[in-house]
């Protein structure tokens, strides 16, 4: 208490008038604000070091953030900062022993970290979803069909859906029905792909063999079924065979089924 001795009498009275618990609470709160600022800085640095801004460049979230004069990195470090400040506030309140319908309060405090994680999951989900959309779009750009964007949209919303699911289960909301929906959806996609691509997959398997062993090469004259011609091109799925007036594009499965005759 020697510090207090050096204070003028008015200040001494003031300090003595306020209970010690309040002082501790204020100190805890200030410490948490300092910690929040430092952690926020570190998070920003870390994200910049990991080259996050270039990775997420062009995503919708980043663009929206930039419209508001900020960036995704700032957003994330902001969330981290507010979380720590919130923890500090809760800590200082608990030190003061104030009673606010204790049971409810306790639950709210326990809930806070979950909200924080859920928020991070949602943010990451949005970022990844946007990135997936951009990536798929880039791949499909060669196909000049306007409706093709539905594929990239689908990929994006699937990612969003999964992120939302993780966030909701983090908050303890009953998500069983949503999980079942996801399972049905994924099963449908897989089943659809298996049925639709069966011929392509078969051809690719044969194509792999043909490319590895090259039983016939470009320039060979071959006979497949009733058709005869010169091999022009062999790729994973099809073989191009050309004769005087037609170019035949033969699926590789057919070559395995019917066999191929090399004409000498």
């Amino acid at each position, binding site marked *: 208490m020697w510090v207090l001795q050096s204070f003028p009498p008015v200040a001494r009275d003031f300090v003595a008038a306020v209970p010690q618990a309040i002082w501790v609470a204020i100190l805890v709160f200030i410490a948490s604000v300092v910690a929040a600022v430092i952690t926020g800085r570190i998070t920003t640095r870390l994200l910049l070091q990991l080259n996050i801004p270039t990775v997420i460049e062009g995503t919708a979230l980043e663009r929206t953030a930039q419209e508001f004069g900020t960036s995704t990195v700032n957003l994330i470090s902001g969330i981290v900062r507010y979380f720590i400040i919130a923890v500090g506030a809760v800590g200082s309140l608990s030190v003061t022993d104030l009673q606010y319908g204790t049971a409810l309060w306790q639950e709210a405090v326990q809930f806070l970290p979950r909200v924080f994680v859920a928020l991070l999951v949602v943010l990451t989900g949005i970022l990844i979803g946007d990135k997936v959309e951009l990536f798929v779009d880039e791949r499909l750009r060669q196909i000049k069909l306007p409706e093709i964007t539905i594929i990239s949209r689908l990929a994006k919303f699937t990612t969003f859906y999964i992120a939302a699911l993780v966030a909701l289960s983090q908050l303890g909301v009953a998500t069983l029905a949503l999980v079942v929906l996801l399972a049905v959806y994924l099963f449908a996609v897989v089943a659809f792909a298996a049925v639709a691509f069966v011929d392509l997959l078969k051809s690719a398997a044969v194509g792999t063999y043909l*490319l590895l062993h*090259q039983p016939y*090469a*470009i*320039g*060979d*004259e071959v006979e497949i079924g009733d058709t005869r011609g*010169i*091999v*022009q*091109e062999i*790729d994973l799925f099809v073989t*191009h065979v*050309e004769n005087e007036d037609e170019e035949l594009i033969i699926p590789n499965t057919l070559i395995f089924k019917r066999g191929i005759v090399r004409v000498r």
Partner: protein
Amino acid sequence: MAVLSDLVDDIIADIQGLVMFSPTGSRYERFINADLEYPIIVVAPENNVNAATYIELPIEFDDARDQIRFGIEGAIESGIVAEGDAVVCNLSIFDDGPDSLVRVQVGESIRSGIYDLFVNSRADSSVIRDVFNVAIELGKKGQKGKPVGALFVVGDAGKVMNKSRPLSYNPFEKSHVHVGDPIVKVMLKEFSRLDGAFIVSDSGKIVSAYRYLEPGAEGVDIPKGLGARHMAGAAITRETNSTTIVLSESDGLVRAFKSGELIFEVDPEVY
């Protein structure tokens, strides 16, 4: 100044199209927003201005005339301009951005087949471009500083293989090397000391090296003074649907042949 603007007025009088070579975004924006009564045709390596009428430039032509020909032929092919139209081209002759206006009367004389060579060849246009770049690279560096020659036959590989015979074992047998692969530049430099032709398929696979071409050279009309390599290269394009790209050992130029004719030539040193 009145006299100078008269000159420009003469060039831009009654035109049916404006061809811009590699315009910047803001520049193109300015013209497209001006609501001109004739179409603006963009010719560039990439359509990054999102132009509605766009022609892809596969390689950088060092000759402005080749560049203009390519653009105009592309525009004719896409039906944007027709024979008899007059168009103005805005292009860069020296390196510092667009520096010239050229008025061109669209007609038979402008056609050299240069657009046809890249776009309507049997092989993919990207394959032709890749082979071109390899030939130019080879011409620039040579083999250990000495000039080398090379002959690439692109497209219709099956037929070409049947019209040629191996000089030795084929180093590319059972391999899957494409001309666009980065490794090719190094590899071809080594292989270019081999004699004979490289054969490249429609999709860019290197089918064979060391091939001796055996076409009939009858009726092939190429400039006198070109050697046996050019003659063989030109002749094979008459008998098959291929395109050949030849790097000359003696003068170092890269030439392209199609249907037995010399379509155009470039000097690798200018690149």
